[in-house]
């Protein structure tokens, strides 16, 4: 799956007057979690998202790994943003991201060995997750460390949320369970966390297979767009403007 850095990645311009730091953070959070969600709006990092979301715990594992990488890369990129020239900017970002990913990879292999085995190639492949380079280039390289940190956190949480949500949807429909294999992450005591829905339900296999990932993500995006459009329509109605819902759906 090829992913190009989306040129339309937009961020609210940071307010020069600095009305309030917290207002900025709030805006960053809104962007990361909803308005510019990397998975639902920017559509970045779809390769790992689609491949690993076949159950909740896998999604959580990869989501957390991605979150940590995003935090580390955003902070480091912001830290060095005034010390690297434009020519070597991208290679330095890549070196930072690759180092962060490799460290997470090694740590996961040491402490969550079995889960690491299941996630396999998708941990090293976080390097190629465009969402991370995208945030480094579009945000962290232009903003102060605190803002870069908050941005990394909320972008990561937004991505993690979709991974877990899609994972939970696919696991419920495809396997009839929730939190299966939680012990891989949380130790032996988590073996009892698995929730089974009905003893006779054996699941719709399609949900676990790759097409299920595409259909699931498509439904999530459709739901988000529908919800946003409804909201816009409501606002416009309140203002007395008549605009059809369809035309306001972002393409």
């Amino acid at each position, binding site marked *: 799956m090829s992913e190009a850095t989306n040129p339309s990645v937009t961020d609210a311009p940071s307010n020069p007057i600095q009305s309030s730091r917290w207002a900025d953070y709030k805006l960053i959070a809104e962007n990361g979690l909803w308005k510019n969600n990397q998975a639902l709006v920017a559509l970045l990092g779809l390769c790992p998202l689609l491949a690993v979301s076949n159950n909740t715990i896998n999604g959580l594992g990869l989501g957390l790994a991605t979150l940590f990488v995003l935090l580390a890369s955003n902070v480091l990129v912001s830290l060095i943003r005034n010390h690297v*020239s434009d020519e070597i900017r991208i290679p330095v970002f890549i070196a930072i991201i690759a*180092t962060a990913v490799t*460290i997470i990879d090694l740590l996961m292999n040491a402490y969550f060995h079995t889960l690491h085995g299941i996630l396999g190639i998708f941990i090293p492949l976080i390097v190629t997750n465009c969402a991370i380079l995208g945030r480094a280039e579009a945000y962290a390289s232009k903003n102060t460390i605190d803002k870069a940190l908050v941005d990394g956190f909320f972008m990561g949480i937004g991505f993690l949320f979709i991974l877990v949500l899609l994972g939970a949807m696919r696991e419920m429909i495809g396997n009839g369970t929730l939190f299966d294999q939680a012990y891989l992450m949380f130790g032996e005591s988590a073996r009892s966390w698995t929730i089974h829905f009905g003893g006779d339900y054996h699941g719709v*296999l399609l949900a676990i297979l790759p097409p299920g990932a595409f259909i699931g993500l498509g439904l999530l995006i459709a739901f988000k767009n529908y919800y946003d459009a409804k909201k816009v329509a409501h606002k416009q109605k309140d203002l007395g403007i008549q605009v059809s819902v369809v035309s306001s759906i972002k393409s």
Partner: protein
Amino acid sequence: MGQNANFKNLLTIMFASAGKLSLFVLISIVLLLGVKTITDPLVAKAERQNLLDTLNQVMPKDRYDNDPLQDTLLLTDPKMLEMLGSEDPVMVYRARKNGKPAGLILTTIAPNGYSGNIYMLMGILAEDFRVAGVRVLKHKETPGLGDKIELNKNPWILEFNGRSLRDDNDPRWAVKKDGGDFDQFTGATITPRAVVGQVKRTLLFVKQQSEFLYE
């Protein structure tokens, strides 16, 4: 003169950039080496534990007191490998108690599954060549039908526990449809037939070669 100075200036900038990039890469390398030194022993330990956990599924822990990971035998004889359905060398882990043979753990492959090879791990006790346990490691059988050979889908695979061969052509070692003792699955006979057949062949192999295998 002006051009020359310009060129020199450009060269300085280029070297500075190259130097900075190299510095970053160097820091990365040092950092990674450091982390790797810390995690390597932990990874090795986790890998060992994983393998041991798998072996213990087919060979109860209380049956042996040695370290089967250290007491191994690599089978390379093509005739032996043929009986195990494998083209690659097979590692045999040997369990002993008080120095005496207690059991063998080895992988074996049923070549005639419904869709290709079924990879199994099998533990065989030294006394009367009884099956200590069988687990399917990897297969491509039909989900919902043939995949009941996996323990987390169906307890069927436990039917093997404690069984042994009466003679080379023990009629009990077949699925019920073929007049044997083992259940088949509704809609899937080929898969259990392949598994039963290969477990039987492996038992025969261990019986025939037991002296060589424990030596």
